[in-house]
Each structure stands twice: as structure tokens, then as C-alpha cells.
């Protein structure tokens, strides 16, 4: 009974073993081809993805360059500074003109003072002429009293009177002209002062207007520079993210190597000779697995072969020799 039952149990196992072996033998080339296709498709997809990412990084670089060049934040700030310097030069030039005008006003005031002195001097000339006339008149009277002897003196006194009259008229004329000059100088002084006040106001207004324009320009360029900086920062962050993604895509190299080993191992199994007897087959299988293990290139393969869990591989340090 026991023997019978053993026979009955062994028969299905043997046929199951044969079935598994048959299915495996038939399926192995199919599996290896399918794994090869999956490996190729992964490689192609990752290669295409990597190229796309490289293209994105190149375009980001180019865009960042254009943003920095286009905003010209630094250059605009320098232009604004230069503008401030030029404005200061213009204002100084205008102030220098203003000072010259003030000096001219002082000169005019000095001339007005001189004309006042001239007016006094011409009045004195007039007064002297009047007194000389009176003196000549007295001299003529005295000459008349002297009779025949005073006739010559009377002629001289008459001429002196004529001269003093001429001197008086000239004095009057000088006084009139000096008054005209004085009035003209006063008018020039007043006009100069009016113009000076207007100029001063114009300089102040211009300075304020130009400063306002420069201030707005500086603000606008600052805003542009801020926008450019923010764009650059965002672009740089995107670039870093893409570069980091590229680092992660290196998994394809490891996956390809592992899959290549799986494909190779499957093909080797297909080529294995038929071995009679379970002991010989076991020894042959052990040797085959050891040879397979010796070809591994990654730590994951070695761990899985030893029945351990594969761990995520993090970027490692460089070893210098």
C-alpha cells in the first residue's frame, strides 16, 4: 500500500517536473526576447528623454542669457548714475551763469553810484559857472565904473560871462545825460534782476524735473532688474531640477546591465546540455549559478543572488588612487 501510494504520489510530481521543464524550455527564448525588447525600449525612451532634457537645459541657458542681456539692469543703473552726474554738471553751469549775472548786477549798481557822483560833479560845474557869471557881471559893473580905463577889462569880463554861460549850459547838458544814463542803468539793473529771478526759478524747476525723470528711470530699471533677477532665479531652479532629473535617469544604465545579464543567463540556460540523474543535474546547476554570479556588475544583483533585498543605490564618493 505504502509503495503503491508512493508510486501514485511520485507519478504526478514527475509529470509536473517534466511539464515545468518543458514549459520553461519552450518559454525561455520567448522570455529572453521579451526582456531584450523591454531593455531596448527602456534604453531608447531614456535616451530620447535625456536628449529632450538636454535640449530644455540648453534653451533655459539661452533664455537666461537673453533675460540678463535684455533687462540690462546693471547698465541702466549706470546710465542713471551718469545722468545724475551730467545733471549736476548742467546745474553747476547754470549756477555759474547766475553768479556772472549777479556780478553784472553789482557792476551796474556801482555804475549807478558813479553816475550819481557825476551828477553831483556836473551840478558843481553848473554852480561854479553861475558864480563865475556873477563874478564876471560884477567885473563888468566895476569896469563900467572905471570908465575909459575899464573898457578892456569890460571886454574880458564879457567873454568870461560868455564862457561861464557856456560852462553852465554844458554842466546842465551833462546833468541831463547823466540822469538819462543813470535811469537807463537802473532799468537795466531791474531787468537783470527780473531775468535773474526767472532764471533761478527755471534752473530750480529744470533740476526738479530732470531729477523726477531720473528717479522714475531708476525705479523702472530697478523693477526691470528685479523681474530679470526673479526670472533668472526661476530659470536656474528649473535648470537644477532638470539636471537632477538627468542624474536620476542614470538608473537606465544599471537596469540595462542587469537586464543584459538576465538575457545572457536565459540564453545560456537554453544551451545547457541534458544531464541524466538528479545529482549530476544539481551539481551542474550549482556550478552554473556560481558562474552566473561571477559576471554580476552591480551590488543589487549580488544581494538578490544571495536572497537579500536589493537596496536603493545612492550617488557615492569618488575614490582616488
Amino acid at each position, binding site marked *: 500500500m505504502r509503495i503503491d501510494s508512493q508510486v501514485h504520489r511520485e507519478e504526478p510530481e514527475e509529470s509536473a517536473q517534466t511539464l515545468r521543464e518543458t514549459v520553461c524550455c519552450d518559454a525561455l527564448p520567448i522570455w529572453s526576447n521579451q526582456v531584450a525588447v523591454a531593455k531596448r525600449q527602456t534604453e531608447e525612451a531614456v535616451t530620447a528623454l*535625456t536628449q529632450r532634457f538636454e535640449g530644455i537645459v540648453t534653451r533655459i541657458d539661452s533664455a537666461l542669457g537673453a533675460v540678463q542681456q535684455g533687462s540690462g539692469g546693471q547698465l541702466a543703473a549706470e546710465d542713471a548714475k551718469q545722468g545724475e552726474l551730467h545733471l549736476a554738471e548742467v546745474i553747476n553751469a547754470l549756477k555759474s551763469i547766475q553768479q556772472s549775472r549777479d556780478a553784472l548786477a553789482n557792476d551796474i549798481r556801482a555804475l549807478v553810484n558813479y553816475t550819481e557822483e557825476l551828477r553831483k560833479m556836473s551840478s558843481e560845474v553848473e554852480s561854479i559857472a553861475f558864480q563865475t557869471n556873477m563874478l564876471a557881471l560884477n567885473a563888468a559893473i566895476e569896469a563900467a565904473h572905471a570908465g575909459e580905463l575899464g573898457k578892456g577889462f569890460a571886454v574880458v569880463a564879457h567873454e568870461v560871462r560868455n564862457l561861464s554861460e557856456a560852462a553852465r549850459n554844458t554842466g546842465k547838458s551833462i546833468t541831463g545825460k547823466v540822469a538819462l544814463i543813470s535811469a537807463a542803468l537802473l532799468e537795466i539793473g531791474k531787468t537783470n534782476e527780473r531775468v535773474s529771478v526767472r532764471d533761478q526759478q527755471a534752473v530750480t524747476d529744470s533740476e526738479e524735473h530732470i531729477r523726477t525723470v531720473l528717479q522714475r528711470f531708476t525705479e523702472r530699471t530697478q523693477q526691470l532688474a528685479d523681474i530679470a533677477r526673479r526670472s533668472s532665479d526661476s530659470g536656474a531652479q528649473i535648470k537644477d531640477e532638470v539636471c537632477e532629473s538627468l*542624474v*536620476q*535617469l*542614470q*538608473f537606465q544604465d544599471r537596469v540595462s*546591465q542587469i537586464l543584459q545579464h538576465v538575457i545572457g543567463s536565459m540564453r545560456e540556460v537554453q544551451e545547457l546540455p541534458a544531464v541524466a540523474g538528479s545529482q549530476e543535474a544539481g551539481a551542474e546547476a550549482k556550478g552554473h549559478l556560481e558562474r552566473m554570479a561571477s559576471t554580476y556588475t552591480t*551590488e543589487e544583483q549580488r544581494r538578490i543572488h544571495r536572497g537579500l533585498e536589493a537596496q536603493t*543605490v545612492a*550617488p557615492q564618493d569618488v575614490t582616488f588612487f
Partner: protein
Amino acid sequence: MSKKILVVDDSSSVRTVARMALRERGYDVVEASNGQEGLKALDADRIHLVISDVNMPTMDGISFLKEIKRHPNYKFTPVIMLTTEAGEDKKQEGRAAGAKAWITKPFQPQLLVDAVAKLMPA
């Protein structure tokens, strides 16, 4: 004139990551997908440093490294191995063949650039 670096790897994505990192730092980059192509690139150009994978078809990285060390023009050219191989035995094999540094993938681009700068000062 910028220094020229030969990157040899059968993985296009790894070559791309290396190329981008190195070009960003001003290096010229020449690429090859296996040791055989790498040797042709060495003869066609003046290369200042080589970065090579280990497991590649046609000619693997260690054989390529040995060929470089036999090459009259590149005997003293620094070689960095960039590979998924992290085993100490393989590293020592690389060291014995003349490699100057060993970087295990996945790698941070900055790490590669720093190693290049250390082995090839400006």
C-alpha cells in the same frame, strides 16, 4: 584653449549627463560608446583626460585602460573609471591598470567635475 575630455560609455544618457556637466565648466567633450571607438578617438584628437565606463560591448573599460597606458601619446593621461561596478576587486583591477580615480554610478555631475579639476588642474 580649452582642455579636451574623452567620455567613453555605452549608455547615451550617462554620456549626456557627463557632457553637459563638463561643457558647462568649459571643457571640450569627445564621445565614444566603447573601448574600440575610444581608441579611434584618441588617435583622431589630442585628448587631455579620459572618463571611461567598465562594462561595455566590443572592448570593456579595463582593456581600454590598458591600451591607453600602452599608447605612446597617452601613457600619462589621467583616466577616471565611471561605472556601476562597486566591488573592491574590480576597483583594484582598475588601479593596477593605471586608473587615477573610480566613480560609481549613479554619480552627481559636480563630483565628476571636481574629480576632473583635481586630476587636470587649469
